[in-house]
């Protein structure tokens, strides 16, 4: 029975294909545009470039899209406080003149934290500070640029450092610290968070003016 059904189905599909083709040809003969493209079945939607795209009632049959969220203003992540067994949000700051060493060391710290299971909240870089070393010539008052020193800083922010793991962690860090690189571990504060942003002088000026006006009015 089954092979008969399959044969019947196959023949039916062939017939329907033939009918569609015929219909296409008819439409082609009636309309001016030539419809070129692959054979379309009754259950397929037209592609976007097809002239019939978007016509008719179809929105009920496509999956519903979630409404687009407007991008929220950047908020600071809440700073975790220290508990009895864990430290809160700590900033491990690596700074130095040699960028290669500083970056490699900060990558080493990040990888070490991943291995030891310490959660790394963020890992970012602070802007580079350039220092020009000027040398005064022996005769005369003109200063010549002797050297340009750039201080690079990278920060790895840890969130849950266990108090028992801390001594080992610190020891490993200190033993592997390269020459010329300074390491400092501090607690994260809001001031540190605000340091990352660029100063906006116009906004600061406007705020100052607003404050002055606010002070002037009551008096």
């Amino acid at each position: 029975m089954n092979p008969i059904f399959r044969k019947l189905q196959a023949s039916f599909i062939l017939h329907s294909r033939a009918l569609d083709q015929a219909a296409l040809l008819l439409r082609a003969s009636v309309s001016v545009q030539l419809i070129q493209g692959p054979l379309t079945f009754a259950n397929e939607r037209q592609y976007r470039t097809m002239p019939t795209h978007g016509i008719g009632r179809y929105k009920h049959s496509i999956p519903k899209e979630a409404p687009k969220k407007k991008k929220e203003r950047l908020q600071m992540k809440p700073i975790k406080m220290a508990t009895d067994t864990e430290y809160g949000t700590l900033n491990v700051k690596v700074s130095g003149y040699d960028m290669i060493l500083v970056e490699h060391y900060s990558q080493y710290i990040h990888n070490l934290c991943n291995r030891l299971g310490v959660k790394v909240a963020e890992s970012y870089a602070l802007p580079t500070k350039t220092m020009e070393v000027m040398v005064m010539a022996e005769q005369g008052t003109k200063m010549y640029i002797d050297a340009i020193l750039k201080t690079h800083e990278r920060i790895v922010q840890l969130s849950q450092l266990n108090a028992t793991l801390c001594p080992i962690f610190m020891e490993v860090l200190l033993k592997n610290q390269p020459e010329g690189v300074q390491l400092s571990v501090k607690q994260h504060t809001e001031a540190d968070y605000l340091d990352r942003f660029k100063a906006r002088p116009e906004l600061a000026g406007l705020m100052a003016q607003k404050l002055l006006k606010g002070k002037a009015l009551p008096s």
Partner: protein
Amino acid sequence: MAAPCSKIVSRPWWQFIKNVGWTGLNQTVVRQLSRNNACGAAAQTKSKTERIPSQWKLHGAVCLQRLPVISQERNPIEDQFAELIHQMELERSLVSEHELRLLEDAERVRRKQAEDYDSDEEAEYGDQETITALDQEDAWEQKLKKFQLAPRVSDLEDDHQSVGRCLGDSLVLLTEETLGQEKVWLLPQVPWQAGETLRQTAERALNSLPEADFKATFLGSAPCGVYRYKLPKAVRTESCQGAKVFFFKALLSGHPPPSQNGPFRWVKKSELPDYLKPAYLEKVNRFILDL
């Protein structure tokens, strides 16, 4: 390397907690305990609180380490790889500003020496500086020659008493003490007194070292290791079966005084077997990192 260490440290921490919380024991329980090493069993088999003073004396010891000052020497393989990478980076890199200046100056000199040189045609004649890039390079080379680098390997390598030896490795402080009849090398330790925490005992051990004032920062209040030993049968009494030594890690901060007389030795981890007894060494090796 670091991951196993965390496990090793957390175990003695639990042992420490259980020991400190352990107030009294029967004799029979103590004998059982001396066979198996796990102190977890002791806490569970703790009987009703009879105030028998503990049979084990507590000591606090300090493992003072001097951190490495410079990086270690490279292997031959590491050397070859570093050279290869350096060569590759050099070949792939772009020309820097200084090198551009050198090229421009060379070009200018070549144009000057050409026969049909017209100085009015020189576009940047007004900006020509008196100092060329080559002059600057010469000045820099002179400065480099004047600068003296400190030697990596000093001649204090074999002097086990000096702190300035083996700058690439971390060193541990050992002192010599007389226990019973024999002189033994061990980490500085001091018996615990009632009323102080074990970390304070370790700090006292460091401060009570004769003829040496070391400024050290202690890493955390949790001990990093424990060593338990029983006194020889002749000396064993009712109240004292042996002692437990809790080790605390500290890092040497600042420069120690150059003259250190006294029974001190600064040793690397690989030299520890020459000084310490095997059982002691086994426990101490677990928390001294050789990274």
